[in-house]
């Protein structure tokens, strides 16, 4: 009787596991299809316009060569500079802010945290017009859009303190105190004790800080305002999708899409372990 029930349970488990995997496989195929499609189109050289089939009839690297000879190089460098500078500066500011809010007790700390949390709930787009005015007055629009976009990204970065502060809160304060008794300054405590224990959250912060500007479109387009020299890849490539360009540039556009995805994919593949830990884990175990 017991054995029968046991067998029944095992079969039920197997059926439910199999159906879950089948569903997940279908979802992942659907999810991957656009990527596969774009990648295949990027190697199509028999025509440059949209066609009704997926597998290229003639394969080649012409689209990538076209890319190299276009403004794409400039846009790519622009995007890379914005994303890298933002990632470095945002990470530094955000981690310092989080450490301060996690470890220091000062007047108005609570209200300040709540104020920033509420302020962060408003979409950034609301500030677009006034920010453009400010950037324009500073001469940081159009051809100078790169430093302008870095400034905008970095300026409000301290407000994203809560994820890393939550992580720092899990590190016992006695570690800071022990280090201070051992002779470390506050800055040394942060660099030698807290940050090495916070690898996942540092990587999470770098990744999110890099990803934001890397995929930015609306704000980047607004700030560059029709000047190709200030475009990032998203804005630049969008300019190829106009009615008069699309027939000539469609496959090049696909090649650009592949190139844009490469660094982000590599970053995620290398750092996904930390990324998941950063979102879900605490620092000090055992």
């Amino acid at each position, binding site marked *: 009787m017991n054995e029968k029930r046991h067998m029944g349970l095992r079969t039920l488990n197997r059926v439910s596991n199999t159906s879950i995997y089948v569903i997940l496989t279908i979802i992942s195929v659907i999810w991957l299809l656009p990527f596969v499609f774009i990648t295949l189109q990027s190697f199509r050289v028999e025509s440059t316009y949209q066609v009704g089939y997926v597998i290229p009839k003639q394969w080649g690297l012409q689209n990538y060569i076209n890319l190299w000879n276009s403004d794409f190089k400039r846009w790519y460098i622009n995007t890379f500079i914005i994303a890298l500078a933002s990632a470095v500066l945002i990470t530094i500011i955000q981690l310092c802010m989080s450490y301060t809010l996690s470890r220091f007790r000062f007047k108005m700390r609570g209200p300040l945290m709540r104020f920033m949390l509420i302020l962060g709930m408003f979409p950034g787009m609301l500030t677009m017009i006034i920010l453009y005015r400010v950037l324009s007055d500073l001469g940081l629009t159009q051809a100078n859009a790169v430093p302008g976009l870095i400034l905008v990204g970095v300026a409000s970065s301290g407000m994203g303190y809560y994820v890393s502060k939550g992580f720092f809160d899990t590190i016992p304060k*006695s570690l800071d*105190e*022990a280090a*201070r*008794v*051992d*002779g470390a300054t506050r800055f040394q405590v942060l660099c030698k004790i807290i940050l090495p*224990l916070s690898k996942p959250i540092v990587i999470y912060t770098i990744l999110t800080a890099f990803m934001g500007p890397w995929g930015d479109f609306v704000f980047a387009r607004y700030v560059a305002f029709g000047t190709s020299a200030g475009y990032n890849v998203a804005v630049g490539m969008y300019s190829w999708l106009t009615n008069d360009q699309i027939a000539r540039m469609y496959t090049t556009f696909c090649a650009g899409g592949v190139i844009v995805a490469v660094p982000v994919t590599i970053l995620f593949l290398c750092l996904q372990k930390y990324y998941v830990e950063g979102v879900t884990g605490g620092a000090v175990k055992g």
Partner: protein
Amino acid sequence: MASVKLTKVKKIYDNKVVAVHDFDLDIHDKEFVVFVGPSGCGKSTTLRMIAGLEEISEGTVEIDGEVVNDLQPKDRGIAMVFQNYALYPHMTVYDNIAFSLRLKKVPEDVVYEKVTNAAEILGITEYLMRKPRALSGGQRQRVAIGRAMVRDSKVFLMDEPLSNLDAKLRNQMRAEIILLRQKLDTTFIYVTHDQTEAMTLGDRIVIMKDGYIMQVGTPTEVFEMPSNLFVAEFIGAPKMNVVKTNLVREGDEYFVTPFGAKLPVKGEKGRMLLEKNIPSGEILLGVRPEHIVLAKEGENAIACSLVVNEMMGSELHLHVNTTDGTGLIVRVPTIDLDAQGRNALVGGHDLHITFEGKAMHFFDPATEKNLLV
């Protein structure tokens, strides 16, 4: 090596809660002082003020004659061992111990010598390349002590260092701390809530309650002459029995009359009562469980019935009820009873107890202060 002097030290938190009130204490060079008291009594806060981890609201802390109120922890010449060990999880045991030396830019060969030396004293040499998570509680605590040792500090601060260990290991580590103290020969300030640790380790004990010092004295002083009821009940396990009764003076003789008995206060205690000219009246009478003895029925004996008999191995803890229902605890060494006597001590068994004058402590019922101090 240094003395530590606290003068009118006060800790007031932002929410106006006063954690420590006018704390005055002189700790001599190479002395081992233990702060003991229940949770929330301010003992750890006081230690943290000495360490510089907590701001001093009022008063001064001097280490070796120098006021250190505004000095950073690293500049106070102290080393500290924390309750939860506070080992750096990402560093090996070696790096943990070497951390403070490397911050001071001590040459690596000196670091090596100091770390291996400390590890040898503490018996952790074989674990030097391990991370803290691969160590047991006792080993972690040794590493924490090692980290404090290499700093060659003037004052060694320990904040409940044995609280996270199991009972057996705690006893072992307690003995090791005594040995360590002999080896280091420096000033120790030790915080604990465990009165056994306080009694066994301290040259002097500071007993605290609600941010106030209740008594400062040697273990013998606080045990034999507690200055108030709190100290009397806090020190000693099981805690002192306290009953409300009358002190009766007849000429030059004193008696107490608990539960209808009439017990003479003879010897030293009787003489002290006489010297202080204590009048007859209601008092709180304290007697430690180990000073109560089983007796035969008579004028000097209190009748009671046994409620619970706890066999502790070397002794029995008898929980008894007197005729008016007051609960007392009596500690009887098992060696004093034969097997028959031991077997007879079951719940409901009637027995008689008594105690001598030298075992009695007299407290004022209003102020709870010891009448003889």
